[in-house]
């Protein structure tokens, strides 16, 4: 055993170095594939031994009964082992995945497509209510998709531009929704002075049919306020820690709403939220309704169409503001902060206000979307504001390509629309969905549209490849 070993180390065989090397690398790669597979299988064993291996249930008289399912456990671990080998082998064959750069011609074709795509999408969006006037389901779906487009664009400011990983975005959506719902019912509080102690009293300004339009900005401002409130404690946190605290913040808001029964109605939610009006004119069948006013027969679709245009306008507002902000010093500071916070400080940029402004503006658009959600549903409850929503919106941003407006819109369409598309697959929907996500992330790890467009240029605007752009760790 020891003899050939020492012989090998004595004099490296120069006669057939290439062949030797090749077999050596292949040996190593086979070894590493096996090693990876074993590690994965062990991990699966640890993970699933309790989840699958032992099954516990409450017995008929309340005692704990359990039985083992080692067969299933072995099957799962075996599947992980084999699957890992297959995946690794494919990876070896195709070379390092994820660094797939499209050929130049294809890229150029894409860029032309991209230039046509945006106006085409915009025109299509404007025409959706006309084309699908008689298909309420599709109109509803369109409204839903646009809501997520808007949420994605809002979160994109925080995650994509400023590089702050926010897992609790739904909190601002909830703040916006509840702000609108509660203020619409109570009226807008305003304090005034009185002669007697405590010298200040509060009256409520009833907004009537203008409720939505008056309270939309209020909801945004309140959400922005909560964004700043979240921003303060997380100023010093980065990466994973930031993600955890924002996640907790989202849960805290939800739990407060759930438990503050007197104010929010707790799990029962708030109902009877005023519907939007066409700037004061209600969309009702009555004499003073919008339909009667313009002299057409009433149809409930009118409201749907109106809602569609409201959310389209709100989403486009978000987009417009984001595009504008990117070209303003504040937006450039966000991106610079994502690239290198230390360098920002050395250039005299106040990181505190820069971070807080990103949180506030992102939260404001979340708040707008929340108010819209409330007026669209007419009823809200804490169930609509779970972590799953945050995760979905974040997935849209990541999938779309952090920082890319078009990418986020496409991702929202694909995710929400696709989710509906696979409705027929029942419980396999999630599986298909997860699989597609994994494949997409392998194929395009930086999202659908991953390059960055410079915010200012002297000559010609050229896209910056994603490999250069940082994702931010704060």
């Amino acid at each position, binding site marked *: 055993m020891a003899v050939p070993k020492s012989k090998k180390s004595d004099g490296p065989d120069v006669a057939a170095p290439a062949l030797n090397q090749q077999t050596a690398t292949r040996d190593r790669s086979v070894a590493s594939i096996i090693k990876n597979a074993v590690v994965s299988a062990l991990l699966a064993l640890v993970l699933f031994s309790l989840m699958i291996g032992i099954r516990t249930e409450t017995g008929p008289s309340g005692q704990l009964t359990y039985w083992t399912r080692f067969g299933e456990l072995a099957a799962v671990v075996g599947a992980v082992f084999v699957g890992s080998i297959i995946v690794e082998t494919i990876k070896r064959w195709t070379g390092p995945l994820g660094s797939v750069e499209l050929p130049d011609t294809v890229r150029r074709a894409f860029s032309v497509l991209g230039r046509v795509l945006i106006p085409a999408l915009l025109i299509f969006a404007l025409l959706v209510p006309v084309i699908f006037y008689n298909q309420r389901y599709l109109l509803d779906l369109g409204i839903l998709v646009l809501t997520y487009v808007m949420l994605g664009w809002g979160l994109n400011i925080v995650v994509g531009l400023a590089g702050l990983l926010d897992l609790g975005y739904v909190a601002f959506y909830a703040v916006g929704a509840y702000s609108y719902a509660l203020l619409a019912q109570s009226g807008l509080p305003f304090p005034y002075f009185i002669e007697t102690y405590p010298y200040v009293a509060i009256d409520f300004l009833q907004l009537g049919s203008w409720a939505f339009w008056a309270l939309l900005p209020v909801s945004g401002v309140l959400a922005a306020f909560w964004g700043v409130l979240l921003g303060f404690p997380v100023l010093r946190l980065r990466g994973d820690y930031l993600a955890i605290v924002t996640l907790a913040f989202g849960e805290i808001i939800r739990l407060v709403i759930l438990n503050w029964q007197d104010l929010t109605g707790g799990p029962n939610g708030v109902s009877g939220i005023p519907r939007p009006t066409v700037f004061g004119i209600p969309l009702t069948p009555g004499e003073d309704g919008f339909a009667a006013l313009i002299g057409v027969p009433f149809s409930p679709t009118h409201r749907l169409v109106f809602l569609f245009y409201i959310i389209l306008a709100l989403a486009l507002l978000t987009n417009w*503001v984001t595009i*504008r*902000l990117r070209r*303003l*010093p*504040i937006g*450039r*500071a966000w*991106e*610079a902060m994502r*690239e*290198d916070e*230390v*360098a*920002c*400080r*050395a*250039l*005299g*940029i*106040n*990181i505190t206000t820069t971070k807080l*402004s990103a949180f506030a503006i992102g939260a404001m658009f979340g708040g707008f979307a929340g108010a819209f959600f409330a007026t669209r549903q007419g009823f809200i409850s804490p169930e609509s504001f779970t972590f799953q929503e945050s995760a979905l919106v974040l997935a849209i941003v990541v999938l779309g390509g952090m920082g890319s407006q078009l990418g986020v819109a496409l991702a929202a369409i694909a995710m929400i629309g696709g989710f509906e598309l696979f409705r027929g697959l029942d419980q396999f929907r999630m599986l298909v969905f997860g699989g597609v996500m994994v494949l997409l992330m392998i194929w395009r790890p930086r999202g659908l549209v991953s390059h*960055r467009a*410079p*915010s*200012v*240029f*002297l*000559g*010609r*605007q*050229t896209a*910056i*490849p994603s490999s*250069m*752009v*940082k994702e931010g760790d704060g």
Partner: protein
Amino acid sequence: MTGNPTANILEVDHLSMRFGGIVAVKDLSFTAKRGDITALIGPNGAGKTTVFNCITGFYKPTTGMIRMIHGDSREFLLERLFDFRISKLAKVARTFQNIRLFAGMTALENLMVAQHNGLMRASGYTFLGLIGSPGFRSAERSAIDRARYWLDRIGLLARADEAAGNLPYGDQRRLEIARAMCSRPALLCLDEPAAGLNAREGEALSELLRLIRNEHDTSILLIEHDMSVVMQISDRIIVLDYGVKISEGTPQMIRDDPKVIAAYLGTDEKTAIAVMAGGA
């Protein structure tokens, strides 16, 4: 140049910086004159970067005082200013030993970010900028002009729209200096700007530093290992070893100081003198 040209721009007084048990800088006092290039040299680990970090607010000195004096004789005690205010108010800019450009942003964008505070004010803290006020537009145009000026000076005008991370190493070094200059500093602190540059790039750098000193109202504090650069362009040199100032003077004086040579050779003074005698 405004004010008394021979006045000090920076006065470091009994500065000490301790990290746990390590004393990185010990009771250091020195001054830098307005309009001068002052070099801070010393062997590896002498505490040079630590001094910079204290001056630019990244570290809070354990003891000591750092006074920045502007041409209009306004004074700032840097150890009391919060980091970003040192650049914003006291007008001290810096570069880093390992380049810290915004790699995913273009060269031009890097220079625009450096002009953040002025542009922010011009954009009415974003509100006026959002509606595209003419005041902001003209401020932005002049910011682009300044960026263009510096890009031209460092020979990168043609590559203004390329990602900074894609530029060659030497260009990145000079771009970082240009970026610092775009914040219109009174004092520019450069941490080993010639590190990793070839001879031609080193020459371009010396050229740039001379331009900054001669044509701009900016004094320079320089950390450098490359003695050819230091000796060529510095007006005054301060030598650190183990956090202590061991020598100070003109390049000629430093060149002939046995204490300095001893520190660099890692031997005692006698051997150094012997080496010098042998070498000469």
